[in-house]
């Protein structure tokens, strides 16, 4: 039975990448619709009227929104190559860490990225603390859930790409091999994984985009 699967995304969204990877891991054919978020398509607004955000996965006309919700949905619909652990306790741990990644880690790295020089030291402390917590989780493991890529690797996948881009723009090294040997090793494994490596957005385009974003934030927040 042919299913119709569509993914609404932008070229740069790290959240949408999670779904690209998940669908690739499951070997699912789908149509990609690239959105310009400054000029959202009527379809996107129809499928995600509440937030108007990407990614949105539409399967047989039914939309699913929010990347972590979509990951769970994908895992429940296509049960081969499972992304999440089966055991409820292990599953709850995976969900906890995915939320930590989004709520705490990403936010603290972003705060550092848009901080004025005078505020960078304080912002860096929080970012490094959160990175250290993630580092602990990777001890003795190739990927977050063991030997193979799973839900939590996809949830944290943005670290493997976006962090080095932000580091380059800031001229600041956050994740170095000495302080974060396990995280650095995970990044190498993840970035080179066959399912993952062909999906990264063009680095030079990302650098320009985030450079501009940073300049706008710094200008807007310039103290009088």
């Amino acid at each position: 039975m042919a299913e119709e699967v569509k993914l609404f995304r932008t070229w740069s969204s790290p959240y949408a990448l999670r779904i690209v990877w998940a669908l690739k891991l499951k070997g699912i054919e789908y149509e990609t619709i690239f959105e310009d978020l400054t000029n959202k398509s009527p379809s996107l607004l129809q499928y995600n009227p509440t937030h108007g955000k990407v990614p949105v996965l539409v399967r047989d006309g039914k939309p699913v929104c929010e990347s972590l919700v979509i990951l769970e949905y994908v895992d429940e619909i296509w049960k081969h190559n499972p992304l999440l652990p089966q055991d409820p306790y292990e599953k709850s741990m995976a969900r906890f860490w995915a939320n930590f990644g989004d709520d705490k880690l990403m936010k603290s790295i972003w705060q550092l990225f848009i901080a004025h020089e005078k505020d960078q030291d304080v912002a860096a402390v929080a970012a490094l603390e959160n990175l250290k917590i993630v580092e602990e989780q990777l001890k003795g493991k190739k990927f977050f859930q063991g030997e193979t890529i799973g839900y939590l690797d996809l949830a944290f996948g943005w670290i493997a790409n976006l962090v080095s881009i932000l580091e380059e723009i800031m001229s600041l090294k956050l994740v170095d091999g000495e302080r974060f040997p396990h995280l650095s090793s995970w990044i190498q494994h993840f970035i080179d994984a066959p399912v993952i490596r062909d999906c990264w957005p063009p680095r030079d385009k990302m650098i320009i985009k985030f450079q501009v974003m940073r300049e706008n934030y710094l200008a807007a927040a310039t103290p009088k």
Partner: protein
Amino acid sequence: MSSRGSKMEEVKLFGYWVSPFCRSVEIALNIKGIQYEYIEEDLTNKSPQLLQYNPVYKKIPVLLHNGKPIVESMVILEYIDETWKNNPILPEDPFEKARARFWANFVDQKCFPALWKTIWSTSEQYEQNKAEALERLKVLENELGGKRFFGGDSIGMVDIVANFIGFSFRTIQEALKLDVFTEDNFPKLWEWAENFANCSPVKKCLPPQDKLIANFPPAYMGKTLVSSFQSRLQLQFHPPAAAK
């Protein structure tokens, strides 16, 4: 590995009486008919156990099941539903389940903070915060539509996560003479709240109204007592700093 119904099962909940996040977990446990030991935390003097079981956030609620801690209320709700399969709080169909998760997130991340902000508004901030809260409630009212509960005929995850709207917020807003969530503006949601608060798994764990009102005395409104309150409650949402 837990064995359902076994006498060896030990379920403990570390909570704080006023926290709607803790309330969510209690309601879910009540729906499933699970016996548990409740431990009230003093958030100004957290127990070594709490710090041990939730070292990352040091917050309640923490569910302890056979010695294993699960934290974050929404994560706990999913765990409860997957561990005890009677009276499910999430739909079985993956699409409906995804919808429920989406709306639970909306209530948790968009509705609760907006309503919370109205409680802590100064008179200058109130109208703007109220406008935001009204917008969010409107979306929720539309989503509820003609259903008795968000979960259909019986309460489900979205209803549970919205417990603050279903009970405490109405009590607090009445005491503070706020006019955010009114029957006129949100007739469906109002009726939902009445039905929700009357469900027995919910009624069992609602805080006494007088104690709730005493916790939010009218004197707080407009004063810069936000930070002390926040440190007492240690809720995830950070109320905005009151204007000087």
